[in-house]
């Protein structure tokens, strides 16, 4: 919506009346805008700014020191490792699910969609719990794992599994509407022109979904590195070994090392801001495949 270019009274009465009928009075608009902006300032802007002011509250030196401290570094490393392992798996699942759901008819499609939505209904703590039930020494597969001396929970594999559970829907949910909107015509055309299944997928499908895929990957990444509850349950909180960045923040905070906690938090907030920016930029491109609309 654009601002009215001419002043209100300069417009002919018919136009004025028409506008009056489908918009609220100016003062109402401004009241509503103010309330909305105040709400957002209170709940979103102030907290975001606070992270940074708290992080730098003890000065730049303490900020920097908190980030390069060994436990912090290993937390960062672990977080990135989990990301690097889980992201390709999530991409694979997301693309496969979107392909099956958007290009074919089959019974039980709704069930599959509900299944993909499932993690959103499950508390992260429960997500961690289920893997403890399966893989801990007291768990179902415990004796079997002990026999081969395999450690899943309280170690990296458990963290990855818990993260996968929580993050697997993101890319799928992003790609499904994109692929549905694009239809199957181009793929069918490629087939009639003699393309094999893989040629069709690599040359026609992938380029068309690249923006949607990127969008989904960004969302998934933000969620992966930020996951707290599920990882908290399975990690065992072993300092320097099984602490991801969010867990490290928790430890610092509980030890009253506020500036350090916020320093690490500020890193994650920067990542969040980048996520928001990329999301915003990619929003248009997702379905139409190019910048043009």
């Amino acid at each position, binding site marked *: 919506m654009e601002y009215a270019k001419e002043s209100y009274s300069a417009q002919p009465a018919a136009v004025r009346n028409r506008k009056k009928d489908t918009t609220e009075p100016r003062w109402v608009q401004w009241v509503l805008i103010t309330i909305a902006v105040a709400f957002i300032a209170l709940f979103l802007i102030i907290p975001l700014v606070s992270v940074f002011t708290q992080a730098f509250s003890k000065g730049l030196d303490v900020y920097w020191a908190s980030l390069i401290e060994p436990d912090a570094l290993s937390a960062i490393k672990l977080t990135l490792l989990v990301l690097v392992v889980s992201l390709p798996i999530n991409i694979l699942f997301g693309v496969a699910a979107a392909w099956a759901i958007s290009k074919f008819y089959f019974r039980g499609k709704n069930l599959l969609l509900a299944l993909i939505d499932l993690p959103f209904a499950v508390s992260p703590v429960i997500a961690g719990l289920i893997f403890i039930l399966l893989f801990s020494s007291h768990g179902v597969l415990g004796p079997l794992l002990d026999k081969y001396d395999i450690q899943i929970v309280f170690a990296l594999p458990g963290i990855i599994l818990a993260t996968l559970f929580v993050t697997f829907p993101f890319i799928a949910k992003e790609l499904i509407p994109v692929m549905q909107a694009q239809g199957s*015509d*181009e793929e*069918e*055309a*490629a*087939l*009639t*022109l*003699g*393309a*094999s299944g893989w*040629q069709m997928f690599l*040359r*026609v499908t992938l*380029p*068309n979904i690249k923006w949607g895929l990127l969008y989904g990957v960004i969302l998934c990444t933000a969620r992966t590195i930020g996951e707290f509850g599920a990882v908290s349950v399975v990690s065992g909180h072993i300092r320097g070994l099984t602490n991801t960045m969010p867990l490290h923040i928790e430890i610092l905070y509980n030890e009253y090392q506020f500036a350090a906690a916020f320093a690490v938090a500020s890193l994650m907030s920067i990542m969040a801001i980048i996520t928001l920016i990329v999301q915003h930029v990619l929003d248009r491109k997702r379905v*139409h*495949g*190019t910048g*043009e609309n």
Partner: protein
Amino acid sequence: MSIKVKNITKYFGDYKALDEISLDIPAGKLVALLGPSGSGKTSLLRIIAGLEQADEGYVLFDEKDVTGHNARDRQVGFVFQHYALFRHMTVFDNVAFGLRIKPKKQRPSKEVIKARVEELLALVKLEEFKDRYPMQLSGGQRQRVALARAILTEPRVLLLDEPFGALDAKVRKELRKWLRKLHRDIDITSVFVTHDQEEALDVADVVVVMNNGRIEQIGTPRDVYEHPATPFVYEFLGNVNLFKGRIQDGKLVNGFLEFLAPGAENEREGISYVRPHHITIEREAVHPEMIMVEITHIHFIGPTVQVEALRKDTGDFVEAELSREQFERLDLKIKEFVFIRPSQFKVFVPEDFTI
């Protein structure tokens, strides 16, 4: 390459889209599948292409059974209603696609591909657009790219699914002329689907009229228009006057009009179909069967004149069509009384009278 379709049946769930369709398409012909939406024509085309599988029946290319082959193996050129151009590729890349994805052994060199693509782009008059993207082209241009892309690989048959359906009238007419010329130049068996009877009659060598999953009639455009085989074909192609009546002594009686209906059962209800241009108008009752009408409306439509008249015997309206010369010779005016008779007609007695 000839195409034979034998007893093709297709269901979508419980809905029977095609009912034992059999069709012979001789090599080199341009065939139109004509019918309203839901007639099954697009399903049939896609089954020929291999984009869908029939539940029963066979498809034969040059007498060879291709029913089990998928779209890739059938080497068909397919043109989609909404073009289906690869949106992220240039026009050049779109057209070149078919040759570029061939396995290494069969793939021509880059120079050969370039030459062929440019040759085809010149044929469709889009050479200057070769570096543009589909989004930058008009509908008519996109369809020409789609055509070029489909024929680059020298397919055995060209299939078009309502190719001009998404374009406006003027562009449609141009592309129609264009398709005819292309077909003459390249001489490839072509089948296209349309719901526009004007298009089918204008372009095709053979028209296949379909309705409700069945074939109503196959014939040349002239055949199906002048000698419709069923009421549906009569009504779908061009305008028609309907005269309903009862059969008596081998004649359908409607007011003072009697239509010969040899072999029709007595006392059955029937309908006689008469095209507007088969209604003869005279100022005097030169023929004993002529009836009197009062002219109510005169429309000038390009080179023809449509005359609407009210029958004095039944009070029904009749629509007649004359050429300009005929009209001027008779010098007709509204409210005048003249005489008409049908010069050509066909009587149908429907199974169940649900008209």
